[in-house]
């Protein structure tokens, strides 16, 4: 166990003592956030879990405030958002915080995921912790997607149309499934109503799963840049004050950047078509999802050839279905990462080749983001296809087979030894 049981605390305050004897929340808080042993070498990348959790709180708070002035019906939705911007006291602030908050929530989570991949935080004994994290990411994607539909703009309506139409790729059940998702034969009022209901619900589901994620984390303790588990109390420091202060500083810097965007460039990530009400009869010439979905959108579009039995004309996997499978598969693959990676060494710091493969993965992910932002023709399509190829080769070939050839660097025996060596 990474942490022993905390010494029984004697509380001076009689009220606290009274409550704690009946419901030991104070004992629990001291154990999990006071004396909780953190690896002493955890760097600022370890602050992003807490940052992401703070962003979730900000999103829920501003979201509830917005819901009080928002009208989820097709004739009124767009205007009610404009009213929030113009008439509701500080409505503009709540909306800009919520709108850009989604982006910054994803920034924090993407950094958090990269940290986990680089330092092997998904490996034994943290496999389940990692899997729960992937579930959170999928829930976040669903929530963000449905939230984007609520202003009922051109981008909202057509984004919903394109993404829900993905499900029509599935054979036999596809069309029925899309009608079921829409609640009609096109994206219309029933769609908006249910998306609002689900957009309201899912953040609380995320909060619940985050609780389980943190619970699992506190069973194993945090990973650290060496990937070596703490061996003694010399390797750890109590969470408070060392990491409460470090995480608070990181949070303040992050929130400063966030609020700088909210105040000075609140529309920098928004497309012009988001300011026109949804017209089901006119598709904008170039529709793209929000930036945090672009890499996955590019994977979707990377498949342009049907796969069939040669010379028979029988199509086994149409291009559209391949794209849909690949897009979902690109995240589902993360669930299996703990078992795909056969290397006994956790941290990529000690894996001289794998380190560069991860850098290439990051580059290909960014290249996919670029490809997804461009119209589907010419060079961006080819960039998207090459990057998609690397993405899957990385997870399905490099991750499982590289450990057979890679000579890893000597791993320090303890965290303290590694810290002294520097």
């Amino acid at each position, binding site marked *: 166990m990474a942490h022993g049981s905390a010494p029984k605390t004697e509380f001076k305050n009689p009220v606290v003592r009274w409550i704690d004897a009946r419901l030991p929340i104070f004992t629990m808080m001291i154990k999990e956030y006071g004396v909780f042993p953190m690896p002493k070498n955890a760097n600022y990348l370890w602050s992003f879990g807490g940052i992401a959790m703070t962003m979730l709180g900000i999103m829920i708070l501003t979201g509830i405030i917005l819901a009080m002035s928002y009208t989820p019906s097709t004739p009124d939705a767009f205007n009610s958002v404009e009213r929030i911007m113009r008439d509701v006291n500080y409505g503009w602030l709540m909306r800009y915080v919520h709108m850009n908050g989604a982006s910054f929530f994803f920034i924090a989570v993407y950094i958090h995921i990269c940290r986990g991949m680089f330092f092997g935080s998904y490996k034994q004994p943290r496999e389940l912790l990692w899997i729960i994290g992937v579930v959170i990411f999928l829930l976040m994607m669903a929530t963000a997607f449905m939230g984007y539909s609520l202003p009922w703009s051109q981008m909202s309506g057509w984004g919903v149309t394109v993404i829900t139409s993905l499900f029509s*790729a599935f054979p036999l059940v596809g069309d029925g499934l899309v009608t079921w998702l829409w*609640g009609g034969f096109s*994206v219309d009022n029933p769609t908006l109503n249910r998306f609002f209901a689900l957009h309201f619900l899912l953040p609380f589901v995320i909060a619940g799963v985050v609780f389980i994620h943190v619970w699992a984390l506190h069973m194993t303790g945090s990973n650290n840049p060496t990937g070596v588990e703490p061996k003694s109390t010399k390797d750890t420091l109590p969470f408070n004050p060392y990491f409460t202060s470090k995480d608070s500083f990181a949070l303040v810097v992050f929130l400063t950047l966030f609020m700088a965007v909210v105040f000075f460039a609140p529309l920098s990530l928004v497309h012009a078509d988001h300011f026109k009400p949804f017209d*089901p009869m006119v598709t904008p010439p*170039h529709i793209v999802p929000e930036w945090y979905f672009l890499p996955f959108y590019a994977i979707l579009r990377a498949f342009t050839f049907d796969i069939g039995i040669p010379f028979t004309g029988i199509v086994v996997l149409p291009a*559209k279905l391949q794209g849909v499978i690949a897009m979902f598969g690109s995240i589902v693959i993360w669930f299996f990462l703990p078992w795909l990676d056969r290397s006994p060494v956790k941290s990529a710091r000690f894996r001289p080749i794998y380190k560069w493969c991860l850098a290439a993965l990051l580059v290909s992910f960014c290249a996919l983001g670029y490809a997804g932002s461009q119209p589907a023709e010419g060079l961006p399509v080819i960039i998207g296809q090459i990057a998609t190829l690397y993405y899957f080769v990385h997870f399905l070939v490099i991750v499982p087979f590289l450990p057979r050839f890679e000579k890893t660097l000597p791993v320090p025996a303890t965290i303290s030894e590694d810290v002294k060596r520097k």
Partner: protein
Amino acid sequence: MDSPNSSSTGHAPYDRQKARRDFLTITTAAMGAVAAGSALWAVADTMNPAADTLALATTEVDVSSVAEGQTITTVWRGKPIFIQRRLQADVEKIRDEEWQTLRDPQSDEQRVQKGHDNWLVLIGVCTHLGCIPMGSKVGQPKGEFEGFFCPCHGSHYDASGRIRKGPAPKNLEVPPYAFVSDTLIRIG
């Protein structure tokens, strides 16, 4: 627990009791599962189109004012419907083309109604991901095959609305429709 084979107490032997209990447990669980499944079905089915949505299933369009070569757009079930009155020359041209080797092989004759061969009626929704293809209005790009072009992901349809190039898997769908008279079309 009863001792095995305690027939002296008047109860059935232990293994028969166990079999009876298993039977009761399994049937109870099965009935419970059926009840839960039925309830869940009702919950899921509320998300299917409601009666008022289904009631919008037919629409009638007067096409007497459509000129030759003109395309009008009407709405059916919230989707745009392209109604095109084609020139005789265009009909003959598209029918001369090879269709057996297309991605979704259909002849032009199969896509229109007999006796009304000049009228092309299509659901104006790209079969890829649901965008509305261009080419129904004057001045819009018609794509490489002189029909329709979807700007979202670059699907090209020919003058009969058949997919020729790009990611879409199927031809533009033909809605169910009938000519009530020579100038009145009922869609749905």
